[in-house]
């Protein structure tokens, strides 16, 4: 199956690890990935008011180009996203365009240099593709190396689960990452902070606030026995990692590694080339230490 792929800025920079692992996993599962031509930044923020649509220009521009890529390369209508924020912004903009003709008209005017957006795409997050297009059973079949009961804390963050129109799972009791981890032979940890917000872009202006939040999240995961935290959001990953360094004292030096979901899947599939060497070593050591 040929699917469209929208990376977004962060995935091409700080979160390149996620891209490498995710694409390798999907290719191993038989997908052919076609990157959207001339994509632009999603804008990183979705604006709720309907009287200013300027924030939707960038994501809609990307969606228009995705449609052109789809026609040119004859792909399916599925548009893969990896980053939670890109996924959220693209879906919200798509929703707004389709549900509100006034907004759609305004956007068409703003984007008069592009063809009109036809609204034919189906935007899907990496986790949705694994769950809905691949299925848990097929993931299990592909596992070459079990994670040996590794205690994994899934961290969803907020944007994958809210608001309801674009949520990939139940916002209060999500299970998709846990289900995938079970297929890989890991032991998911049920801790209460897994669907909290990490503090997100407040890290730019009020980082102390973010370190407070990430401290609570890591502490809770720790209390419930987590050995590793996995996420799909580059910003969550950064905040959780950096937060642990900043709050080292309060956390009493118990540092939990933060990895992407895709990295654990790639490891279990035996796709070593898709992993950074130090990540491979880290997981090897953790699995081996468990005996």
């Amino acid at each position, binding site marked *: 199956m040929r699917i469209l792929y929208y990376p977004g800025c962060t995935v091409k920079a700080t979160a390149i690890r996620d891209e490498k692992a995710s694409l390798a996993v999907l290719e191993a599962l038989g997908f052919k990935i076609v990157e959207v031509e001339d994509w632009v930044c999603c804008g990183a923020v979705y604006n709720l008011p309907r009287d200013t649509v300027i924030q939707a220009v960038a994501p809609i521009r990307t969606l228009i180009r995705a449609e052109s890529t789809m026609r040119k390369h004859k792909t399916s209508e599925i548009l893969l996203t990896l980053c939670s924020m890109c996924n959220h912004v693209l879906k919200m903009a798509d929703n707004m365009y389709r549900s509100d003709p006034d907004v759609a008209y305004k956007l068409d005017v703003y984007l008069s240099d592009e063809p009109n957006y036809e609204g034919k795409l189906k935007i899907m997050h990496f986790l949705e593709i694994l769950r809905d297009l691949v299925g848990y059973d097929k993931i299990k079949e592909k596992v070459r190396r079990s994670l040996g009961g590794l205690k994994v804390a899934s961290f969803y963050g907020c944007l994958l689960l809210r608001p309801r129109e674009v949520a990939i799972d*139940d*916002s*209060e*009791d999500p299970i998709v990452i846990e289900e995938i981890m079970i297929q890989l032979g890991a032991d998911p940890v049920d801790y*209460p*902070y897994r669907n*909290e917000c990490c503090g997100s872009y407040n890290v730019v202006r009020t980082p102390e606030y973010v370190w407070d939040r990430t401290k609570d999240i890591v502490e*809770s995961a720790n*209390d419930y026995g987590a050995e590793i935290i996995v996420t799909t959001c580059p910003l969550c990953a950064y905040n959780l990692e950096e937060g642990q360094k900043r709050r080292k004292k309060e956390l009493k030096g118990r540092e939990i590694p933060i990895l992407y979901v895709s990295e654990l899947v790639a490891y279990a599939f035996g796709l070593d080339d898709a992993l950074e060497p130090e990540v491979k070593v880290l997981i090897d050591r953790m699995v081996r230490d468990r005996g």
Partner: protein
Amino acid sequence: MERVGVFVCHCGRNIAGVVDVKKVVEEAKKHPFVFHAEDYKYMCSAVGQNLIQEAIKKYGLTSIVVAACSPRMHLETFRTAAMSAGLNPYKVEMANIREQNSWVHEDPHVATEKAIRLVWSTINKVIGNQPLKKVRSNVVKRCLVIGGGIAGIQAALDVANSGFEVILVEKSPTIGGRMAQLSETFPTLDCAQCILTPKMAEVARHPNIKIYTLSEVIEVNGSVGKFKVKIRKKPRYVDIEACNMCSECEKVCPQVVLDKDFNRSLTIRKAIYIPFPQAVPPAYVIDAENCYGVGTTRCSECVKVCEQNAINLFDTEEIIEVEVGAIIVATGYDLYPKEKIGEYGYGRYEDVIDSLQFERLIASTGPTGGELRRPSDGKVPKRVAFIQCVGSRDLQHLPYCSRICCMYTAKHAFLYKHLVPDGEAYVFYIDIRAGGKRYEEFIMRVQTESKVRYIRGRVSKIVQKGDKLIVHAVDTITGKPITLPVDMVVLAMGIVPNTKEIAEILRIPIDENGFLQELHPKLAPVESPIKGIFLAGVAQGPKDIQDSVAQASAAASKAIEILSKDYIEKEPLVARVNKELCSKCGVCTQLCPYNAVEMTPEGAKVIEVACEGCGTCVAACPSGALSLANYEPKQIFLMVDALLMKIPIPEKS
């Protein structure tokens, strides 16, 4: 030969301000059957009625058409007037030229033309009307009350005290309902059991009341005055008359189970048990699901120790058939399950409890004997958060306000402070709805005298950390987020009605939230759309004990109104069956919303007292065997002809 009189009303300027009434009179006179037509300022006035009566006598009129307001307003007035002039009331019809014409049209020419068509159409109908007589039937002087909570108890007592027999059906082993589970009641803080048990005892000893516990209504046929009811009575395995409550059986019973119903899983009981000491009927009951003795393996320990020989492990289900004249539905409520509220832990945290669990924890009859201990480790909680509107007023759960939670939460916080004077109580609320006699004063008392801290804001999440629960909330007055570690959380769960099955059995409608639909929200609040079935308590809508009791008495008085009559009289505008055409397919019996069509070996039969003349069966009958009195197809086609006839629109003047 029909001689029709037409009377056009001005209704002051209501009609005459738009419709040219003189023109309507003129055009009506052109109808071949019309012998007399006139207009008057107010036809409904005594003078107007007199006018009609005089005309009937003077011109020997056989049918009357009054062109005025909606027949809902004055059809009875004109029928009565015509009747005293010697006319059959069913030879009187009204053409609605006010609500459906002058009030909604601005152009006088169009409105006048429409009025003329409506009058002609009504003339065409009335000439085909048969002079009918009202239908009469006898009344069974017995009332069925479904549900043995406080509403059902009150209704049963009121009807029984008026001298009528009452059948009280309750699905659990005892009457008492939710009120029996409560500790104290707001705003007066009477102990719930203290004020409820005298009423329960009165029901138990009342010669006119027959109680069926562990029973459910499974089938209802017939109609007002004579409903045929089937009741399934499940086996109790203990003879109510013989059991003397010595409790020997309970002592030897080896099967220990969670007390899910009365004590809401906070404690355990045996498989042979009594829900609470004042239960009515006062007898033990075996929980067949958990007993070793009923079914294949037989332990029979209880049978061996029972000196009264009251236990029969071979007891079986019974089907009881009764006839009643009226039915009162008071099936009460359940709490919305806390397991559906993800942000408050989906029922995962032991010390996050619902409001009825809290009632049991503080009730002197409860599992802790009235001492407040939290479920997880039995410690006295020193800081408790009470969260209001859980499930209620939430578009993801229940869109409506459950009405009782503000008051019972205030009561909870108040009682908590009495049990744990050095404890801290926090109430999180959206706003306080204390609309009731002495309710606002009670809230004030709780806030000032008991120093309960009210925080206006929603709780976003509860997380467990060690033996504490961390409440994350926002104070919307200061605009600040709050993180509050507490020992216990009480969720003021919304209430949901227990109506789905009974509504299907009785074929009465429920609203979008599952509450039983009343006939009119203001003017007929205890009547269901089916005659003879009345509603009481939370089954009809959220309400507290006060309102449930008031509504139960209202429902009882409505039932008594029927039971006290010797016969029931109703409109004869009912469906009729042409037996020669009926193929007995049964479509009509299934579609009738009033249970008014029965299938007999000779074909469909309309129970005239039950039929409301809605016409559903007539429209559905594939062989055209059904018709509606005074709405015969011939009449309807003539009406349509008149509505579609060519009348030149008068030129604008």
